[in-house]
């Protein structure tokens, strides 16, 4: 009997039917993840907006206030991250990762920025993850709690470096000539750390290339402040 007469002898139609069903389910997940990620991207701006007030007024009180506001503004993002974790089937963390990594990077920037302002300390990946309600350990994920990807955390640190470079300049303008030195010390530790890493040619590497320009700016501001004896 020729295969052409028996409609499912080739198995093609059955196979594609299966495929289409699974594809439809997958597309539904992609749509809902994208929607949540878009909302998360918007919410992630709020803590950063609160923190960016210090570019204009960075006396101790203003900084304190900005930190409190930023902390409060973090909560909606944390809640939404938890929801995001539940929208993806177990074991598909990296399948949809590209859809939502950007707001996570921004949130990392926010919490590490707060840590610097409060104590001049670098917030570790584990601590950053726990502040965001995420799991820290990235080997063998599982469950519905999202884990904080190492590369997203590192990207957040690089975003922080650019923010600090800008702060360095504005702090002097706003009457805090002592801040550039604190920024410089922190940034130097950061740069020394990044120099240990081996990068492949990807977005993280390209972002890392920008770190040297941030460092230069930070060091130049410190130079200006020192030379003019402003401290």
């Amino acid at each position: 009997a020729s295969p052409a007469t028996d409609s499912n002898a080739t198995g093609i139609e059955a196979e594609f039917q299966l495929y289409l069903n699974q594809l439809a389910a997958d597309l539904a997940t992609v749509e809902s993840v994208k929607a949540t990620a878009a909302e998360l991207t918007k919410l992630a701006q709020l803590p950063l907006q609160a923190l960016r007030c210090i570019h204009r007024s960075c006396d101790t009180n203003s900084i304190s206030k900005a930190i409190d506001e930023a902390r409060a503004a973090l909560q909606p993002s944390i809640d939404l991250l938890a929801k995001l974790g539940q929208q993806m089937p177990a074991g598909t963390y990296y399948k949809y990762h590209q859809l939502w990594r950007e707001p996570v990077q921004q949130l990392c920037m926010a919490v590490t920025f707060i840590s610097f302002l409060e104590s001049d300390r670098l917030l570790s990946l584990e601590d950053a993850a726990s502040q965001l309600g995420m799991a820290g350990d990235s080997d063998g994920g599982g469950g519905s709690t999202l884990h904080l990807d190492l590369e997203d955390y590192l990207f957040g640190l690089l975003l922080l470096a650019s923010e600090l470079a800008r702060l360095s300049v504005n702090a002097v303008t706003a009457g805090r000539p002592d801040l550039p030195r604190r920024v410089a010390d922190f940034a130097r530790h950061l740069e020394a750390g990044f120099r240990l890493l081996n990068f492949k040619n990807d977005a993280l590497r390209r972002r890392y290339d920008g770190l040297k320009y941030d460092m230069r700016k930070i060091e130049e501001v410190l130079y200006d402040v020192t030379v003019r004896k402003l401290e």
Partner: protein
Amino acid sequence: QPETAASKRPNATPPGPASDNKCARLSQDENNKVAALFQTFKERLDVKQDRRERIVKLSRDITMESKRLIFTLHRVAGASDEERLAVLTEVSQRLDKLIASKLLPISSELTGQDPWEYRRAYSPGLQELIEAMTFLEFLSTGRLLSLSGGVRDRLPSGLLVSQFDYLLGVCDLSGELMRLALNAAAKADFDTPERVLAFLQKLLGCCETVPDRGPDCSERLLWQAGDNAAKRGKS
């Protein structure tokens, strides 16, 4: 008020403690912590990248051998029944060997890892392999090797075979089938082209029902569909 040398602090000035020594220690402390932290990052990144490299190399080997298998399968065009059987048997054995020698190692690399994280590293090799496997199946039984019962069953279970990779492998298969049909016709084998045509008509009909998944998939599908439609017209 002029600043004296004593009041200038060469190290970080964290809020709180006033003495110079303590500031210096705190800064050194922080420096050590950060350095240690990044050392762990370096190790983690290196482990991941080395793993990815090893998988990519295996994937390349899989691509090469799969292409050779496909080339071998084309010999059935216009061949005698004996030769045909010999080719199919040979390819089947080489396929088993390929799976054991190159796919199993990938599966080991992925043990304990999130398979989606490394999918792209072995995706090209996997697609080429699926092309070879489905080609062999068509020549042996006239059927489309299915993803769940067919492909996934023959590959190590730790290996993620996504529908995406399967679909692309099958699309590439349609190209090989066209080539087979043309070669067969050139050798006065008109039975093969007929079977290929029927199969392809089904396949392309189904491919057209797949909604747009993005540039990769739809481009390849459209290209194959257009290309094959043109060749169909000619033959």
